[in-house]
């Protein structure tokens, strides 16, 4: 393939990976889980999780940078909400790969069942 095609391809992969990086961290995934229930202030997220406020704020900053959460001011509070559409490319990106593994493990599963129905050879 030509160099320019290669560049575009790598760039796309790494853009998607920013979202990957953001959710690679277990604490950040927990925050996303909590935000699935709806819009929340930092304090409410802190009280739901065993993390300090500075930790939560730091993670929220990372999640905001990649667009996984959006923030708006409500009086003195800043409210955070999940931006589920941003998870979509991630899902799509992995879907084909997941299909490949599923096909392979389905074959293995079928074979295991076949063996067991035959009554466990040796």
């Amino acid at each position, binding site marked *: 393939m030509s160099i320019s095609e290669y560049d575009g391809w790598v760039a796309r992969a790494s853009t998607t990976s920013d979202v990957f990086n953001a959710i690679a961290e277990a604490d950040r995934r927990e925050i996303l889980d909590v935000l699935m229930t709806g819009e929340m202030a930092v304090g409410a997220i802190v009280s739901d999780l065993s993390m300090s406020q500075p930790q939560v704020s730091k993670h929220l900053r990372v999640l905001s940078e990649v667009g996984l959460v959006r923030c708006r001011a409500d009086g003195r509070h800043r409210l955070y909400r999940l931006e589920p559409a941003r998870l979509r490319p991630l899902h799509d990106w992995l879907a084909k790969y997941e299909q490949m593994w599923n096909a392979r493990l389905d074959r293995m599963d079928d074979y295991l*069942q076949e063996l067991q129905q035959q009554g466990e050879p040796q």
Partner: protein
Amino acid sequence: MTANRHGSAVVELPDDLSVLITREFDAPIALVFDVLTKPEHVSKWISPHGCKTKECSIDLRVGGNYHYSFVTESGTECSFRGTYLQVEPPIRTVETWVFEGRPHLPAVETVELREAGGVTTLTNRMTYRDKASRDEEIQHAQGGQDGVGESLDQLEDLLRSLLDPAGR
């Protein structure tokens, strides 16, 4: 007895270098281990439907090599090989892994099994040299979509047998 299908595999990216695949099987751990490591078993399921197993050799000991390959209906041979780094029946093997179609993306594969209540959970962790390699490997599963280029189209043809074994 009718075995249960334990749903689909869960694919996760636990860190920058790895892909972690988890799947449950309704079978005892010893049998799952055999099916993963004995050539007479592996040759029965490793090849996608419509592909013909060509090679399946497994020397299951530390430093031993394995090699399996299959030929797609269009005649493309897909070959995978590696060397065992750890062998601990029936709970773990660690091996190098390379798909000869993409020799620049070698990985270390860690296969672990645990059994609870007659259900065996398989975790397969593929660890690449760097994040770019891992992402490239996943990207390959996308095939040639978005007009990435002809060489990826060829790769897609090659991968289609892996991705979509049932339909052609």
